[in-house]
């Protein structure tokens, strides 16, 4: 799924001009990006949290040459899904299995 599908979904839900839905999606993404760029974490209740983590400098190896190299200190982004999101994704397995059992249809 790509951005336009989300735009369509919002458009159907709110009935505002489609252009507004498109701008909204863009601005949601931009706002999240700006906040993360400022070094602030984001928590969306019912969805998950975007956490920034600092990584120290460490030595690694170039997998191609085997040479030792220093990996500089950096900041990385991690996403921790909320319970609701985890459950929504997890339920799919159960539903699929149920479907398979009841109908004898290959998935």
């Amino acid at each position, binding site marked *: *799924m*790509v*951005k336009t*599908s*989300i735009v369509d*979904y*919002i458009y159907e*839900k*709110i009935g*505002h001009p489609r252009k*507004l*839905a498109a*701008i*909204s*999606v863009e*601005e*949601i*993404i*931009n*706002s*999240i*990006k700006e*906040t*993360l*760029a*400022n*070094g*602030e*974490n*984001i*928590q*969306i*209740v*019912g*969805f*998950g949290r*975007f956490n*920034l983590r600092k990584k120290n400098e460490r030595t690694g190896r170039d997998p191609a040459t085997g040479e030792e190299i220093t990996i500089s200190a*950096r*900041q*990385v*982004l991690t*996403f921790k*899904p909320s319970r*609701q*999101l*985890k459950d*929504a*994704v*997890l*339920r*799919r*397995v159960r539903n699929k299995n149920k479907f398979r059992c009841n109908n004898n249809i290959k998935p």
Partner: protein
Amino acid sequence: MTKAELVDKVSQKIDLNRKETEVIVNSFFDCITQALSDGKKVELRGFGGFRVKKRKPRTGRNPKSGEKVTVPEKNVPFFKAGKELRNLVNKS
């Protein structure tokens, strides 16, 4: 930043009241959740991608009794930041 703050920020940018903006923001995250629960990938250019990773069934142990238990196969949501976002975050 919380969702309420995100709604405020977006509301100012798109010039729409808070209540209606909240519906839009909620729809945005609901839509991603639904797609993932259908097993679809969600790709947001310039931001990153959400997808579902499959975890194989495994035998674990009940830490209390030490009994062996089978943990069934499960799906977990996963996010990977895009190149642009990774660089943006690393600079800050």
